[in-house]
């Protein structure tokens, strides 16, 4: 029995021939794109939005470059770093031209060293860890087209201190690296301006009951800054209302807090007036965005969320870059270089990849949940234009905090 | 009338009942005697359907009980007073009694009141849990519980076990009363005295087979049987 299966395995292993880089020399041969994305698990909604955005982007910008069809294979990582790594190994062995994803920061941290070692061109969405930063700076094979994790938080801190005049703030964040980066960025910027973070509440990813964390928020803070996503965002905002905080203490958050991936599930009264520091809001008033929102709504009957925009931008950058290569996709280094040199006008505004951090220089918005034509929408109330990844901080100061926070909770 | 016809029963891998045939008449007490480990309890459990016979048949008034579940056999009118009493320890005395109550509506049927009349001790302790009773009270309860189903056949497995003589006398009285009411009482005993005094017909079991049958007087006379198979 054991022997039989081993033999079968061994035949399977030998039968499919040598692996390695994708062979794209033949005319009409496919460009192999691997897309790791969580389609199940806690991050599934984000993953699905991103996939939808990517599909719409391919529809818009083309599924074929110079006669080579773009062949996308989506791999469900379940939000689990170990799965992401195992799948990455498997798919890279089978040959890949461009690697997209993964989405979750811990997945990126797991996959990045392997992809760097294999010199695979990769666009992994968000820059959240020291591992990525080091790897991009050293190998240049990858970048994050979405944003660096703390980017919107840095500007939200500046806005909170300067525009709103808040001095004491409570932070509530999910207890994982994305949460650490976001909360740490907010804290670093807010404190460097002179403010105080009086309480930090960390919600474990496996928390059974989010509202028991909400009930820990003290009544005498100026405002709450929240990093919550998916069902945690829904629970958090609901609990915020039911424990009597809505209307009493302003709630500001990361993009995901009121992103369209959760907004329809929110209690209307609880959601109205919640503000976010965001790199994309569905209510951005530009032709690019209006076109994108209309197309997205037509195709999926939903308003696009930030992850939809991110998927769309990924496709836009990739197609533009591939076009610049004149049909030669044999050199991973050239592909990586091309991907990072594209400057585009995206729904979220102009996007340019920074040489220092390999993450975007782009607009950051402060948005507010408003009701427009009976729908809840995120509407920009302030725009910071073409902000570098370090935001209001000095670059060295930013890099120090960034490296520190990606390894553990900020103090 | 309950008839056991060439019954073979295994317990796990051991072949315990090796072809037993016997018969218990209505309004009589039929007793089965034998040493420890000879298969007496196995026979009772087979009759009640708690163990299934590999071969042979058991009939109640001509209807086969083969393959019937214990509760079906009980519903047909067979009741069990098990060895070790096994009263429901977490139930009160009254709950123990009413649990299986199946009044047949006839005058003279067993009711809670009649059981309490017969065993006044139980009446006094009716709110106590089964586990709080003494051994004798538990035996009374086990008998009371069995008759509350208004059975036609009563199987009793060593009702004298571990009881003071005066309680054993009480058991004897109850058996005689039930006989008078027309019940078919099938008694498995080690207590030679109780069996001799209450039974109308006796069987002796050894090595999974019936080795002797007869009346009490015949057994009193059969010294060799008593000595060899009963150690008496």
């Amino acid at each position, binding site marked *: 029995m054991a022997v039989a299966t081993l033999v079968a395995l061994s035949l399977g292993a030998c039968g499919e021939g040598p692996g390695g880089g994708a062979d794209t020399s033949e005319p009409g041969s496919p460009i192999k794109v691997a897309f790791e994305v969580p389609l199940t698990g806690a991050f599934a909604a984000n993953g699905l939005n991103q996939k939808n955005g990517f599909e719409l982007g391919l529809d818009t910008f083309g599924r074929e470059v110079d006669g080579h069809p773009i062949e996308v294979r989506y791999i469900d990582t379940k939000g689990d770093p170990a*799965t992401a790594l195992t799948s990455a190994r498997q798919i890279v062995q089978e040959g890949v031209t461009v690697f997209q994803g993964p989405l979750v920061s811990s997945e990126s941290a797991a996959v990045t060293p392997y992809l760097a070692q294999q010199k695979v061109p990769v666009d992994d969405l968000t820059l959240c860890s020291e591992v990525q930063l080091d790897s991009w700076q050293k190998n240049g094979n990858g970048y994050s087209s979405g944003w660096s994790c703390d980017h919107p938080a840095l500007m939200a801190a500046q806005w909170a201190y300067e525009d709103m005049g808040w001095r004491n703030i409570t932070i509530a964040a999910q207890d994982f690296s994305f949460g650490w980066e976001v909360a740490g960025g907010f804290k670093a910027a807010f404190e460097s301006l002179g403010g105080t973070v009086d309480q930090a509440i960390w919600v474990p990813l496996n928390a059974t009951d989010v509202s028991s964390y909400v009930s820990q928020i003290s009544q005498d803070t100026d405002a709450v800054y929240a990093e919550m996503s998916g069902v945690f965002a829904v629970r958090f905002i609901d609990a915020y209302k039911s424990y009597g905080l809505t209307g009493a203490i302003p709630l500001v958050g990361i993009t995901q807090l009121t992103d369209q991936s959760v907004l329809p599930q929110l209690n209307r009264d609880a959601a109205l007036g919640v503000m976010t520091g965001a790199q994309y809001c569905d209510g951005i008033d530009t032709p690019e965005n209006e076109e994108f929102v209309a197309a997205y709504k037509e195709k999926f009957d939903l308003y696009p969320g930030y992850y939809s925009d991110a998927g769309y931008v990924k496709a836009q950058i990739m197609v533009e870059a591939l076009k610049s290569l004149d049909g030669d996709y044999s050199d991973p280094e050239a592909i990586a270089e091309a991907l990072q040199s594209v400057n585009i006008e995206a729904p979220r505004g102009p996007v340019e990849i920074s040489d220092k951090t390999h993450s975007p220089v782009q607009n950051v918005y402060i948005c507010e949940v408003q009701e427009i034509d009976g729908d809840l929408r995120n509407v920009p109330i302030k725009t910071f234009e073409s902000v570098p990844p370090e935001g209001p901080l000095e670059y060295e100061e930013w890099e120090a905090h960034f490296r520190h926070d990606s390894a553990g909770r900020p103090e | 009338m309950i008839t056991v016809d060439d019954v073979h029963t295994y317990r796990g891998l051991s072949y315990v009942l090796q072809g037993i045939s016997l018969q218990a008449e209505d309004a009589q007490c039929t007793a089965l005697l034998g040493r420890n480990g000879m298969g007496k309890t196995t026979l009772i459990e087979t009759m009640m359907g708690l163990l299934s016979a590999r071969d042979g048949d058991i009939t109640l008034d001509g209807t086969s009980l083969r393959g019937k579940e214990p509760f079906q056999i009980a519903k047909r009118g067979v009741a069990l007073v098990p060895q070790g009493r096994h009263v429901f320890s977490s139930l009160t005395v009254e709950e123990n009694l009413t649990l299986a109550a199946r009044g047949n509506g006839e005058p003279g049927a067993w009711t809670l009141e009649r059981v309490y009349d017969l065993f006044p001790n139980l009446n006094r302790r009716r709110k106590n849990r089964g586990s709080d009773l003494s051994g004798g009270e538990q035996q009374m309860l086990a008998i009371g519980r069995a008759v509350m189903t208004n059975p036609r056949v009563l199987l009793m497995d060593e009702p004298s076990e571990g009881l003071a003589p005066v309680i054993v006398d009480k058991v004897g009285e109850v058996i005689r009363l039930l006989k008078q009411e027309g019940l078919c009482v099938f008694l498995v005993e080690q207590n030679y005295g109780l069996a001799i005094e209450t039974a109308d017909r006796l069987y002796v079991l050894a090595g999974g087979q019936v080795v002797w049958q007869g009346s009490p007087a015949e057994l009193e006379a059969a010294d060799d049987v008593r000595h060899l198979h009963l150690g008496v």
Partner: protein
Amino acid sequence: MSTHTPGAGAGVAGWQGLLARQQRWLMLLIGLVFLLIVSSYLYRGGFYGQLVTQMLIFAIAAMGVGFLGGYGGMVSLGQASFLGLGAYGVAVPMSDGADPWTAIVISLVVTLAVALLTGLLAVRVRGISFVIMTLALGQILFGLASSWVDLSGGDNGLIIPVAPTLGPLDLNDPIVLSFTVLVVFVLAVLALRTFVASPFGLALRGIKSNEQRLKTLGYATRLHLYISWVISVMFAGVAGILFVFTNGLITPTALDFGHNGIVTLMAVIGGLGTLWGPTVGAIVIMLFQNYLSLYFERWATVMGIVFVAVVIFAPEGLWGLVTKFARRLTRQKAARGQLGINEVPVGDAGAETESELPDPTTEKVQQ
């Protein structure tokens, strides 16, 4: 070896024959694994080599379950968590800058310490309560791994950048690593075989059969079970060390309920109380996870159904079926030459014969 007793000879020879056959199996298996690893690295850059390596690692952990459950009668549902403990035992010191060898030693010490401590609890309960307790222990380790962020990195897990080197052997080379795993696996099999054949193993089977009786034969049964628990946990710990170096990463999911169940499943599907059962189970389940999942999305459903079917229809497990068949053949051969040798029932004794009604508080735990 005293086989002079007439009549006993056939049985013993049959048993030895079986052992000899098992040794041939072992050689064959190792040879095949060798071939497989080499060919997969040559042709596919290591993915299948990786898969085989993972199979062997999980087989080691499952052997721990098989040892305690199959021979001692105590089925653990926390083995993956102890595997995770071994892995974190390496990963935590290494992320604080320890060198790999130091980390391995720390991991072994930590796992041993936890095994010694939890053993005190483990030997206090039996049967179902034991299973539940191991499950709870596993969930607690899982909870610690995900919530003790400062140490474990939370849900991100910890990444291991380098594996140790030993003279010319660099475990950073995946082929070398795979063969190291193979060597450890063979050692684990030999250890298990030795343990089972020893007086200790004999007593353990006795405890499974009737613990009370062993006590009145002079055995401090809790001591035996305690030692077995520690051995079982150490199998998981060693597997965890190999796991973290092979994977380069350990995350809390590796310790969760699903993984705990899967390791137990490996031991049960393969056959509790058999030498090769856990390995067979590990191969089958890893194939389900990595191979069937390519073609059939609902592979977990199939795995669950297969598992339930094995529990119902082949409680001795897949390898148990094979040995049962082999033993029956041996017996038939023997029976031709000898008189009066019955077919040997394989597996556990039935419930003890008791001359009274079944009593729920004394019901035997069977499996």
